[in-house]
């Protein structure tokens, strides 16, 4: 007795509710819209916020790409992609250009996104002020009053302690000169990709029951002081051992044979595409 689920898992009432929250979020860039997050067939904290957005906006003609930490073949990405495909029958792809909806955890793809695409980011902790204020009631007020001293102090304290800012992923950003926003745990390397992005970026936190958005062509600046400017992770002098790419976010690996540290593109589909292009160019050269 296996009951057939509705298109895209949810009943239509739930989808409408979530879409309304999405529209609300787009109208107020960076503002966290509370919504009645549904329990999903995958666990809370495993991308249910992103999944709920994806399922409520997806249509039959959409093409879906899901990435987890840069990889299409990561177990959780595979699991989410399979769930969406099983309940909708939409086409899936690994190529960033071919996708109309891209759900991602902790990365923005290396290939610039276009206005035809929607990026859905999974968010574990949507509240950028949580490290300085535990209470939701208080942080909501701080946002309303544009009171972000706590976030600045956090950076200031790092400078006092370590001589530089020491944030890692999820470095807070200011959206449209108004709301302080957690960009989700993307590396700092990806923060600038949010600025004036052509694609709509939707962020969903299922467990914390919040949806927020960066609409296309919106200013997004990473929080930093003038004399201690924002910096991204450094991969200076490093090249991808497979495709030779530079200026991308790399995974650090240990070569099993000689124990040396090697690097390769974290965005697996980007790397693959470059490899295929190189192979094609080589073939063409040889057969001229």
């Amino acid at each position, binding site marked *: 007795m296996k009951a057939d*689920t509705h298109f895209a898992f949810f009943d239509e009432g739930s989808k409408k509710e979530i879409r309304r929250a999405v529209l609300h979020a787009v109208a107020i860039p960076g503002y966290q819209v509370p919504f009645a997050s549904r329990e999903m067939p995958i666990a809370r904290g495993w991308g249910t916020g992103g999944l709920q957005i994806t399922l409520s906006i997806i249509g039959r003609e959409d093409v879906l790409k899901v990435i987890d930490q840069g*990889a299409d073949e990561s177990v959780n990405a595979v699991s989410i992609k399979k769930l969406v495909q099983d309940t909708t029958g939409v086409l899936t792809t690994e190529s960033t250009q071919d996708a109309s909806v891209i759900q991602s955890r902790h990365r923005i793809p290396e290939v610039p996104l276009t206005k035809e695409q929607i990026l859905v980011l999974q968010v574990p902790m949507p509240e950028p002020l949580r490290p300085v204020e535990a209470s939701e009631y208080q942080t909501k007020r701080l946002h309303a009053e544009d009171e972000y001293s706590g976030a600045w102090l956090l950076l200031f304290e790092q400078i006092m302690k370590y001589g530089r800012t020491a944030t890692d*992923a999820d470095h807070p950003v200011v959206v449209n000169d108004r709301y302080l926003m957690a960009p989700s745990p993307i590396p700092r390397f990806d923060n600038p990709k949010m600025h004036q992005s052509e694609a709509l970026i939707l962020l969903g936190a299922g467990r914390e029951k919040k949806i927020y958005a960066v609409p296309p062509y919106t200013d997004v600046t990473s929080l930093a002081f003038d004399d201690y400017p924002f910096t991204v992770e450094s991969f200076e002098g490093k090249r991808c051992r497979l495709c030779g790419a530079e200026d991308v976010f790399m995974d650090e690996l240990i070569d099993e044979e000689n124990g040396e540290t090697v690097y390769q593109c974290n965005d697996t589909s980007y790397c693959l595409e470059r490899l295929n292009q190189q192979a094609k160019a080589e073939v063409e050269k040889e057969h001229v």
Partner: protein
Amino acid sequence: MGYVAVKGGTKAIEASKKRLKYERLKDGEIIEIKTILSSMKALVDQVMSEASFYSPFLAALAIKQAEGSMEEAVFLMRAHRSTLPRLYYSQTVETESMFVKRRISASFKDIPGGQMLGATYDYTHRLLDFELAKENTVDNHQWLQAYKQELQDVSREDDIQYFPKVVDYLREEGLFEEYEDDNTSPMDITKESIQFPTPRSARLQTLTRGQTGAVTSLGYASLRGYGQVHPTVGEVRVGDLPIYVDHPTENNENAEDNDFYIGEITVSEVESFVPVSIKNDRHDEELEFEIGYGVCYGQNETKAIAMSILDQCLEHPEFDFPTHSEEFVLLHIDSVESTGFISHLKLPHYVTFQSKLDSIRQVKKGATSNES
């Protein structure tokens, strides 16, 4: 032919699912849903309560599928709940109309209507019964026959007796304040996310679907010293409640004729009496009782009592204990949320860890260059 991505994930997941199925099937035994329904009532009740989804059959199915794991069974039920359209709200249920199976008071020996022990583990000695290892249906059948024979000698009441609430008796004495019925529609926490400060309806809903262990330990913490609530259990009752919904279209004067009975639910209900000091008209301190309320699906009295303590705690946020903080209590007792977020730590964190490594390396580099 160009390069293709390493197809590690898909294959690994498929193999893992197969292995899971193998582990469930390998001993060749099948547990029937009806076996779970009739022999694991407490488990079924607890799953329904934490899932906030009343369906014994589906709960038993979830228990079977989850191989008895509480968190998995609750998770399955909650996820299924998300696929169901919500069409009606039931009418307000008056618990005075409960078909009581068990009812006790720790406050008074003689309560109007009397104490009724019903079925409880409370006074059993927790000694393993090795006889059960060789239990058989023939003996059980005989036992049942004998039990029914005994019952025949007990005289029957012709009318169903409804028990008055213990608190009504105390209200008459003026020890409890009389409150007007609050008929504002409760907030539905499954349709809107809770905002702080919360209305009591949102708090009660969150508490009643809380994980039994979490609700119990926070209630215990409050009782033991990390809280200001020391209740006496006024009344614990377990029984069945009829559920009615309005006619979806007709809404006339004879509303009661148009009500639809849609079934009944078994619940545990607790009213705890908590002394609080209040200022009277002359600004003198005076003691009065307030009620902590606990209710949950099925028979789960510990959870309902713990809930009644936490309800009363959250009514008094002025005390500086975590058990009196609604954000602390309400945001951390949900089974699906806590188990989900804890288990997400098993997901890869390569990118974030790489970012952390970079940050630490940069700080170290900075430190050495500063010293030199």
